[in-house]
Structure formats: C-alpha cells, structure tokens
C-alpha cells in the first residue's frame, strides 16, 4: 500500500518534466540542434584543425580558447592564426577580422523582418551566435515555416549546438596539435568545403542563382591576392550584382535559400 503511494508521488513529480518535454518550445530547440547536426559533423575537423594550427602558430591556450568562446567566427579565427604567425600588427589583425566577418551583417540584415518581433535582449545572444551554419539552417526553417511561433527556440537550439561543439573541438584540436604536430597538413578544411556545397547547391533554384554562384567562384579565385580578404568581399558584391541583373521576376518576393 505504502509502495503504491510512493509511486504516485514519483509519477506526480515526473509529470511536469514529461509535460515540458512535450512542449513545442523544447521540440523546436531540439529540432534546431538536430537540423544543424550535419553541419556540426563538418565543423568537427574544422574546429580541430583550428586548435592545432593555433598551437603550431604559437598562440597561447588562453587566446586560442578565448577566440572560440568570445569571437566565435571560424574562418576569421583561422586568418588570425596565420596573421599572428606572420607577426602582423594588431590593427591589421582587427581590421581583417572585421572585413572577413562583415558577411554576417548581410545574414543579419536578411533576418531583420523576423527579428522585429523579439525584444533586444533576445536579439543580442542571437546575433552573437549568428554563423554561416546557423544562418543556413534557420533561413531554411523560415522558408518552410514562415510564422513559426517557436522560431527563437529553434535558433537557440541550432546556435548552442554549434557553439558548444566549436568550443569543444577547438580544445580537442589544441590538445591534439600538441601530440600530432603535422595535423594541420591533413587538409581537414575540406569538411567546410563539402558542407558549404551541401548548403549552396540545393538553394540554386533559378538561372540568376547559377549566374550569381558562377561569378562568385570565378571572381573569388581571380581576386585571391587582394589584401586582407577584400577579394572575398568584392567577389560577393560582384556576384550579388550579377544575380540581380539576371533576375527576371522583378516583382517577386526574395527567395529564401
């Protein structure tokens, strides 16, 4: 009799937990993390090689981890490692980071319509965690479900999964870099390449998208020697202009990728 009573209490205590797990907020959070999983798989070698390169380039452990935790922008962290190894001056490093990460402003601007529904204190962490990967995933979600009430939870799920994985992999890479000195020559950045291919190719819906992609690729290769990655930014702008020029349906709403 007493045992049955105890079970009832246990069930009563478990009930809110079970109910929480059924809420659509948690579902959205987990869905965000789940949909980001393929990109996380790709970020693993990328994070590891960052940590390894940082060690090889002579960065301290504190700086290596501080960049992953506080700056949180993969490709610019790589560039910083090469710049520090080349003894670049601090203003050059900061300016380069700024330019390379300017593309996030374009991502951020294309999410403005959705963000106006949320208070500033929610927008701050969402902005901090805005990466190529999370942008691709949440942008896709918006294309599928334009008025998702739990969009913010979906975004947080994706962002936190990316963030924790990035921090962990940077740390593992740092440790591995101390053990396996030639890790940085394994060509692990290929993971980023195939991940981006997997994002971009399915988003090429119309001829103007293909024009945009073609111009971006050719221009980026031809401008690779421009200083401080300015070629990347210029190529992006050329490609957008080319895409707009070939865009036939002037009245149509912008396509979500």
């Amino acid at each position, binding site marked *: 009799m007493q045992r049955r009573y105890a079970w009832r209490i246990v069930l009563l205590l478990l009930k809110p937990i079970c109910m929480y797990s059924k809420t659509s907020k948690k579902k959205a959070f987990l869905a965000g993390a789940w949909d980001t999983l393929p990109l996380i798989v790709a970020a693993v070698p990328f994070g590891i090689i960052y940590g390894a390169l940082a060690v090889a380039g002579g960065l301290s452990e504190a700086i290596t981890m501080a960049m992953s935790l506080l700056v949180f922008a993969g490709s610019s962290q790589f560039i910083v490692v090469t710049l520090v190894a080349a003894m670049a001056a601090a203003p050059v490093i900061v300016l380069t980071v700024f330019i390379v990460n300017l593309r996030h402003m374009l991502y951020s601007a294309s999410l403005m319509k959705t963000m106006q529904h949320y208070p500033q204190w929610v927008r701050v962490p969402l902005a901090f965690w805005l990466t190529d990967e999370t942008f691709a995933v949440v942008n896709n979600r918006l294309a599928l479900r334009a008025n998702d009430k739990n969009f913010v939870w979906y975004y947080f799920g994706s962002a936190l999964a990316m963030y924790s994985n990035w921090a962990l992999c940077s740390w593992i890479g740092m440790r591995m870099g101390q053990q396996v000195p030639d890790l940085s020559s394994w060509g692990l950045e290929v993971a980023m390449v195939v991940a981006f291919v997997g994002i971009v190719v399915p988003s090429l819906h119309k001829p103007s998208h293909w024009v945009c992609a073609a111009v971006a690729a050719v221009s*980026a290769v031809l401008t690779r020697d421009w200083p401080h990655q300015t070629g990347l930014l210029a190529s992006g702008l050329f490609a957008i202009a080319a895409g707009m020029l070939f865009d036939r349906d002037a009245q149509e709403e912008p396509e979500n990728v």
Partner: protein
Amino acid sequence: MSDDAWLILAMMLVTFGPRYLPFALAGKIELPPILVKALGYVPIAILTAIIALNSVVQDNQIQLHLHNHHLIAAIVAGVLAFFTRRLALTIVVGLLVFAMLRWFAV
C-alpha cells in the same frame, strides 16, 4: 589589461557589431525592396566564393586537375547535393571521397 586581452576584446567587438547592428535596427527601419532582394543572394555569393577559394585554389595556385583532392571532393559533393538535396549525405560522402583519395594518394 594585457595586450592579448585588448586584442580579443577588439576582435569580439568588430565581429559582434556587424552581426548585431541589423538585428538592433529591425522594426525601426524598413529596408528598400531592392536591398531585400539583394540580400537573398548573399548566402549563394559568399559561400560559393569561400568554396572556390578552398577547392580550386591550393597553395595560392589555380589547380584544375585530378590531383586536387579538395576539388574532386567538392565536385562529388556538388553532384550529390544537386540530385539528392540531402546535406548529411553530401557531407559524409564528400569527406569519404577525400579520405580515400588521400589514403590511396591518387
């Protein structure tokens, strides 16, 4: 504060600023339609440029040949993504192709 801490702080600000500015202004200003349309092209333009720089270019040289393992992996991934539209499959097969090319040093 040490020089390192200042450098981290500066990098943090120049990274967070551009990420946050449009979010901060959301609802306060309205972007012109042509700009909204242009923003739709941003991911294709920037990501394709990054792909090209990390596949076609190796050691700062244009390398359009079969010994460029990064390029082969990217092409295989592209074909797969085009026909299947499945991200996870694309990434896993792309990485496997690259690993095999490396392993057998084609």
